[in-house]
């Protein structure tokens, strides 16, 4: 029998416990060669075929890699399951998105899948969110600004002052946001936006 080709997998996770778990589990696979911790600053020089990373680390790596699109494939392993977060990562160009409740078999499959250079690997929840997501330009940048302050509990006047626009303009934005979120009150807007992860904390 010929030796199966080795895949080099790097693990970068902010939580040491998760990191240790990922390294142990991935290391058990005979065809994976696992490395722990950050690689070279320029990921195009990384020897890894696949990097399994936490959410922030993955997005950081992608931003650093720029649009070149070369270098290791990146799989996110995270607990973040809100619409806004998942979509941001997918649009940011991750090759795989898995929630931390995925069983280890699924993770190994995902690593092999993206290593082959195929399509993106999304766990069920991420795929569902991606497929049913509204277009990216769904909330305007200004609406997002207003939403951020609204969720914090600012009144229209307060928001107007902070964004240096009139209270009436804020009001118009708020009612447009209400429509888009199918919310009937300000409080409901805040709740829905938070639950769906539409505002960055």
């Amino acid at each position, binding site marked *: 029998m010929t030796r199966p080709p080795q895949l080099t997998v790097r693990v970068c996770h902010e939580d040491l416990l998760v990191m240790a778990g990922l390294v142990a589990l991935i290391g058990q696979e005979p065809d994976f060669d696992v490395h722990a911790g950050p690689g070279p600053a320029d990921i195009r020089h990384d020897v890894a075929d696949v990097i399994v990373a936490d959410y922030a680390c993955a997005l950081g790596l992608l931003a650093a890699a720029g649009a070149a699109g070369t270098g290791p494939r990146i799989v996110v392993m995270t607990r973040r399951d809100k619409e806004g977060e998942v979509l941001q990562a997918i649009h940011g160009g991750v090759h795989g998105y898995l929630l931390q409740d995925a069983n280890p078999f699924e993770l190994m499959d995902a690593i092999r899948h993206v290593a082959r250079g195929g399509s993106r690997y999304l766990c069920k929840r991420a795929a569902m969110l991606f497929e049913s997501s509204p277009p990216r330009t769904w909330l305007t940048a200004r609406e997002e600004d207003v939403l951020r302050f609204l969720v914090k509990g600012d009144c229209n006047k307060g928001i107007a002052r902070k964004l240096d626009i009139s209270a009436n303009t804020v009001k118009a934005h708020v009612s447009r946001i209400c429509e888009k979120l199918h919310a009937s009150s300000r*409080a409901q807007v*805040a709740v829905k936006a938070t639950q769906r992860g539409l505002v960055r904390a």
Partner: protein
Amino acid sequence: MTAMAHAPQINVAIAHHDPYVSTGIASLLRASTDFAVQAGSPEAADVLVTDYATGVLRATAPVRPPVGRRPKAVSFLVVTDQDRSWQIRRAVDAGVRGYLLQDCSANELSDAVRTVAAGRRYLSRSVAERLLDTLAQAIPTARELEVLQLMARGLSNKDIGRLLGIGEGTVKTHVKAILAKLCEPTRTGAIAEAMRRGLLMDEEPPHGDTSLAS
């Protein structure tokens, strides 16, 4: 008993829903000869390391040992990413002896296991700080918490009154008291602060309805 050098191995069982955290804890503890990490049989363990929900549940209702067997006290150590002050408070109230956040170091983990095994409490620094916050904060009454929970669903006073079978005026009074206790002038501000403090129970079924707009 306190002489660590001669202390017998500490039996540790792990009941954590996250396979990665669970494996991580096991592999870090196995690196030290002080610990015997067992797969199952939490009854025989000195320390049971759990996720948040499991820890709170089991600490509240400890498993009774089979008849004839000497009951043995298991100390619960929760390892979690739930870091809101009232979440921590609820776990401690339930009887959890140790509380660690998932981003802890390997040393913290083994210190925590040793400490709770010796019958003491272990809270990491930031956890202790947040637990102390809860002592300084005004506590909403049970009824106010019910109202708060419904406010956080985005319901109006009228709807809350109907759901709880009380008048709208009464709801208003509760809401006013809630705003005062949370030191927030607005309804949305109060909801945000309640989330920050971890006063709201998780209602969302995991990965349930997201009611997406098309």
